[in-house]
């Protein structure tokens, strides 16, 4: 089973990371899910694939009452991001799913109805959670053509979806990046192959370098914090992406 860990807490404003499932079958990619709760409302970020729903749901239950989750944010349309939607709809049919407008006709194949989806326009939008507003920030073509990050200005946390993702070997299961150089080796092949656009990458790096980010939380692998956020942006900026190794 996965575990839910608090990565940010300030009064009733919390970020939970749901991570590392030792029971997960090896053929499934390991994913991180995040929950942002403010007051008595919460939004679940990239709830994960349907295969891991039991694990995510149970881990979450141990730390938070999931009846208070009214919103889901899906960074993009991949099955490891959002194929559990049908299960979340079983649990709460009124839940709303924020996703790029590009995918509102595709993701219903996983679940949801006409009322479920709130399309996010290309420039992004604010998403109210409790008394605060989180910001959906464009990250298109990194890797999905309709792709968004979610920024929490109060907590200074950026949920970056597949950007910053690392496929960690067994044994390296720390929640945070501890040694940047060693860590980034596990992220390189992923970024070269999955990130498709050099221009989009440069735009993203410029945009995020201008933001106040204490923690960069990817959907796979460890979380970057402090100076490692800057290091990641610099590393990504100079990386040659969108190429198949021949």
């Amino acid at each position: 089973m996965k575990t839910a860990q608090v990565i940010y807490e300030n009064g009733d404003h919390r970020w939970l990371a749901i991570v590392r499932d030792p029971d997960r079958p090896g053929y499934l990619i390991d994913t991180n899910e995040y929950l942002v709760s403010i007051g008595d409302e919460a939004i679940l970020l990239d709830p994960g694939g349907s295969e891991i729903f039991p694990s995510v749901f149970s881990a979450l239950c141990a730390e938070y009452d999931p009846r208070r989750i009214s919103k889901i944010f899906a960074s993009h349309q991949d099955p490891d991001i959002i194929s559990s939607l049908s299960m979340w709809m079983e649990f709460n049919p009124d839940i709303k799913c924020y996703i790029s407008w590009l995918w509102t006709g595709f993701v219903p194949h996983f679940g949801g109805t006409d009322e479920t989806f709130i399309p996010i326009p290309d420039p992004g939008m604010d998403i109210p959670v409790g008394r605060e507003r989180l910001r959906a920030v464009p990250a298109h073509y990194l890797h999905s053509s309709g792709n968004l990050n979610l920024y929490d200005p109060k907590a200074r946390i950026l949920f970056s979806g597949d950007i910053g993702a690392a496929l960690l070997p067994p044994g390296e299961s720390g929640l945070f990046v501890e040694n940047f150089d060693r860590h980034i080796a596990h992220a390189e092949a992923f970024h070269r192959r999955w990130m498709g656009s050099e221009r989009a990458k440069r735009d993203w790096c410029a945009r995020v370098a201008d933001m106040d980010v204490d923690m960069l939380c990817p959907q796979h692998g460890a979380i970057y914090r402090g100076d490692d956020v800057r290091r990641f942006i610099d590393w990504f900026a100079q990386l040659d992406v969108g190429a198949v190794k021949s």
Partner: protein
Amino acid sequence: MSQAAVTGGELRRIVRINEEIKSVVATAFKINLMAMNAIFLAKRAGQAALGFSVLSNELRRFATDLQQQMEVLRQMTHGSVASVTALVKTERLNRLVERMRSEVSGQARAIIDRYLRNRQTTSFVLHEEAIATQNRRLGQTIADTAQLVELGSVLARSAKIEAAYGGSFSAALMQVSSDFERTIAEIHRSLEQLSRHQD
């Protein structure tokens, strides 16, 4: 009731159980701390509080057992979520096959019928049975826990009696054992809620 309402209800029931488990775990943690304080207090009271000291140690063990029992329950609810998930998936597939069946005839329909018969008697029923079994085991564990809590109540009551012999520490020991009694009563209420969430 529609199938979605049933499985959704099942998930919400699991959440209610988990909320109760969390509250018992928090209370058990409190009892553990209280028992530690009681042990120190009894030490200070010395000879007069020997019986009280033994009971405090027992109460501490009780709190640990209770925490363990809650972990067992939590693992069980995890199993239930997995079964509900499997049930939903099977149901979904059945619905699709059902639709396919209504759109074909002759040989194709015969094939689908055979397939459906196999499925119905295997996975779907199995998942439902798994859920029923898990619920029975959950009920049994809650009943076992109720017995454990009963023991806790007895310990707290005995501590109260022992407190009377505590000499100059009597008032302080009495205060502590009343706290125990009140806190264990809280757990009693949680357990009642738990057994109510069972069905």
